[in-house]
């Protein structure tokens, strides 16, 4: 019996989508990647360096794209946003903008996350005070290669990092941990300290969740070598002074005292949120979302990449917040489950 070639549609060309697509193409399936942006790579395109090794994300994206070239049966359609997915007799019809309609035997959703909009936390002044930026803004600034300055072009003498912006914060509706921001903050603090050794750096945190194997090393390095100060306490508010510095009010919960200080710059470590595109899948009852608006896995232990809909799989940060290496691992796991599903389908069809 000759094996009939199956077609898999992958939605989203971030690193999760790219890696899953490559692995599936390698297994011999026909793969189509749909990307709404002009270029693949997703959020990683805006990132300067990755933790814990300060490597550049560019080689990850280019490595994944280079790999694609070996497969004729893998193609990518960019600048295309999908409008709906229908399921008929175990097959999927995907409708996209410009009247594109794609039929697939399985679908992988790798639509990623949305960065928390820090303007929601008005008390920290993002979008209002020029010297309040987010971790993503800082990453872009670092990527530009220009030395870090305040809005008026001065070298900041004091920078404060604020952890958990939009994470573990019931008031803004996100009660979960975004997981990667703690270590991102430590990494960025180290980078600023290396760039501007005279600058004092403070990190305001509520818990430091440095879960990765190499993360604590960075944390120790930050404290011992770079004298970065970690203060346990969330900010109550920030206010702009007449010279455009920022006054911070917080409570140092370890010493139990209220704290007030002026800094030149605030970096808000914005968390990861559900991608609003998820709403489309749940509104048609095709897929279920979890309590945070991420896709719900069929089983959180065994089949993390299977959705509640047979034939539709999920990979990467559309499931929950993940780091880059976890996303890659997760994408690998997704491809194995897709393979298993398609093989099973082949067998059943053959028996019929």
């Amino acid at each position, binding site marked *: 019996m000759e094996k009939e070639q199956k077609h898999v549609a992958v939605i989203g060309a971030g690193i999760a989508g790219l890696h899953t697509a490559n692995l599936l193409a390698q297994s011999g399936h026909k793969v189509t990647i749909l990307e709404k942006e002009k270029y693949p790579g997703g959020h990683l395109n805006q990132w300067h360096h990755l933790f814990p090794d300060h490597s550049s994300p560019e080689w990850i994206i280019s490595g994944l794209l280079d790999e694609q070239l070996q497969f004729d049966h893998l193609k990518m359609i960019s600048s295309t946003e999908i409008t709906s997915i229908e399921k008929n007799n175990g097959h999927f019809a995907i409708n996209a903008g410009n009247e594109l309609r794609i039929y697939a035997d399985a679908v992988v959703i790798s639509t990623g996350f949305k960065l928390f909009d820090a303007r*929601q936390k*008005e*008390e920290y*002044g993002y979008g*209002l*005070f020029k010297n309040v930026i987010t971790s993503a803004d800082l990453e872009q600034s670092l990527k530009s290669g220009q030395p870090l300055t305040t809005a008026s072009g001065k070298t900041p003498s004091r920078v404060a990092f604020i952890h958990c912006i939009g994470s573990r914060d*019931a*008031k*803004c*509706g996100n009660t979960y941990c975004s997981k990667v921001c703690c270590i991102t903050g430590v990494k960025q603090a180290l980078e600023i300290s290396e760039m501007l050794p005279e600058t004092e750096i403070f990190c305001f945190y509520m818990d430091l969740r440095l879960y990765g194997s190499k993360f604590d090393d960075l944390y120790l390095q930050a404290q011992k070598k770079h004298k970065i100060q970690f203060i346990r306490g969330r900010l*109550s*508010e*920030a*206010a*702009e002074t007449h010279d455009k510095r920022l*006054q911070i*009010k917080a409570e140092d919960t370890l010493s139990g005292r*209220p704290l*007030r200080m002026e800094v030149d710059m605030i970096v808000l470590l914005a968390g990861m949120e559900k991608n609003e595109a998820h709403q489309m899948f749940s509104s048609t009852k095709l897929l279920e979302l979890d309590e945070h608006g991420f896709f719900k896995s069929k089983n959180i232990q065994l089949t993390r990449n299977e959705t509640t809909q047979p034939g539709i799989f999920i990979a990467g940060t559309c499931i929950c917040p993940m780091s880059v290496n976890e996303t890659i691992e997760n994408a690998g796991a997704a491809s194995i489950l897709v393979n298993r599903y398609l093989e099973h389908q082949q067998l059943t069809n053959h028996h019929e």
Partner: protein
Amino acid sequence: MNEKLFVIPFVAGMALLFIILIVKGYKWISSLSKIDRLRLINALKSRRILQSAKDIFMECLIHRRIFKKNMVLGYMHMSLAFGWFLLIVVGHLEAFVAEKSLAVPFYLPIFFRFFETGKEFAGSKIFAALMDLLLLFVLSGVVLAWSKRFYKRLFGMRRTTRLQYGDQIAMTALWLIFPLRLLAESATAHQFNNGSFITQTAGSLFFNSNTASTLALPLWAAYSLALGSFFVALPYSRYMHIPTEMLFIIFKNAGIKLKKRTNSFTELAIYSCSRCGICLDNCQLNNAGIKNTQSVYVLKSIRNKNIDDEQLFNCLLCGKCQVDCPVGIDLTSLRITQRIESTLQYNASYAYLENQATTKAGLIYFAGCMTHLTPRIIQSMQHLFELAGEDYWFLDKEKAPCCGRPLMLAGQYDAAAKLIRNNTTQIIASGAKKLVVSCPICYKVFKEDYQLPGVEVLFHAEYILRLMNAGLLKTAPLQKRIIYHDPCELGRGSGMYEIPREVVKNSGQLIRIKNEQEHSLCCGGSLGNLKISQAERNLIRDSAINEYLSYQPEYLVTACPLCKKTFARNRNMVVMDLAELVLEASDEFIKRKKLKGNKVTNIRELETLIQS
């Protein structure tokens, strides 16, 4: 055996009730403070007693306020209260006429038909007809009261109060009194032909000569027993409101108010609650599935002395319940007083606030903690002060003393008083003539609990409207559909509804909505609730947002930083403060005058630009 003895349950119940009422009444009056007692004496001597008489008639008998809420509900209360009252009055007149004497045994008018079996007297037929009519009137109320348990909607209610044992006993007795009276009178009418169109007809319908003569006495006895049981149960039930409310009205009209500590007036207010349940539907905690902390239940728990903090502190203090309270109890203040009582041991130190530098200025701006969490409002206020060329001092710019209101809401009155003293010293020392606040929570406490002679306390809406009227702030209305959300502390709390609306009208297209002004919704963010979870708050917020969205507004404008923050967390609507709206409308004015590109920092520069 003397068959007259059947009146004993009635007489005994009545006597017991009178003793209890006299003891209670004496206790309430005698434990008033000296000043309040003088107020009461003065009121009794002055024309205010007439006002009280009128209020008692209108509220305790006619139930005017309930009529305003729902006609059927109003009729039910009126037929029971006013109908019964008339039965007593007319019944007495009838007995006086029949006996040609005022000295009749006091039970005689109550059981008149039993004792007066067919004696003709002046107008006896008319009296009989009138008494039948009144009995019908009361019975219609009983039928309605009974059907209210099943058809709440007919009475404009979605929820009715859960009853306690005392209430159930008294209510059962009350419901039995009038049907039993009807049966007893009918039986007697059938025997002696002394009834009228109702009792005579019912008599021939229900009885034959045999049953009428056997059942008459037991029925009269049952009627007496129902009356007696009702009177005995009354002081332990919600029906205690009947005598208490009259005294409450007299006290209130004498100018006696709730204090920061409980006293006999607080108790009077608590006993005046009829547990009608009208407050239940108004409570937005229902949207969060919280069903046992509403005012009616808190008052019940206070009266039963089993109030706990879970119940007491799970309230938004939004004041929606008291808008429709037929007794006019100040439910919010009453709850705050109870909170003060339950947190007496707490007291904080604010030593860190002492020895602060004071700045001399004509105007003080006090942002308050909540405005500090919404820096856009602060920025807008500073911009407005600059536009108006104001010499101002931003009192809580760096160190942020609290105004005291959140502590007050939490019942921590002594701690609040310390902050109030600290802030008062600062404000007086600055020599300012005006104090502008941008938070209605601060506004209420500055207005009510501070003593600031020579300092005018202004809410930012008032200040902005003055600038507009004085031509110091020029705006062009934006082409935006705007809903104005009344903050609880500003609207129901301080009675300011129109001023902010004037400001909105000068800045955009104000849409009128159903639940506004005193019926406005709470955002759910209230500082008054110390027990509610964030998820429950979100439910209250979202139900309000959904109602607003149905009007398809482009902006939701409020005048409270806390409302703004609460609403802004639901990401479906553009939410802003009045001060921000006004500045946008001011920019629009500059744009329309084609002045854009010229930096305008104050009104004088603007005027020069317009002229040139």
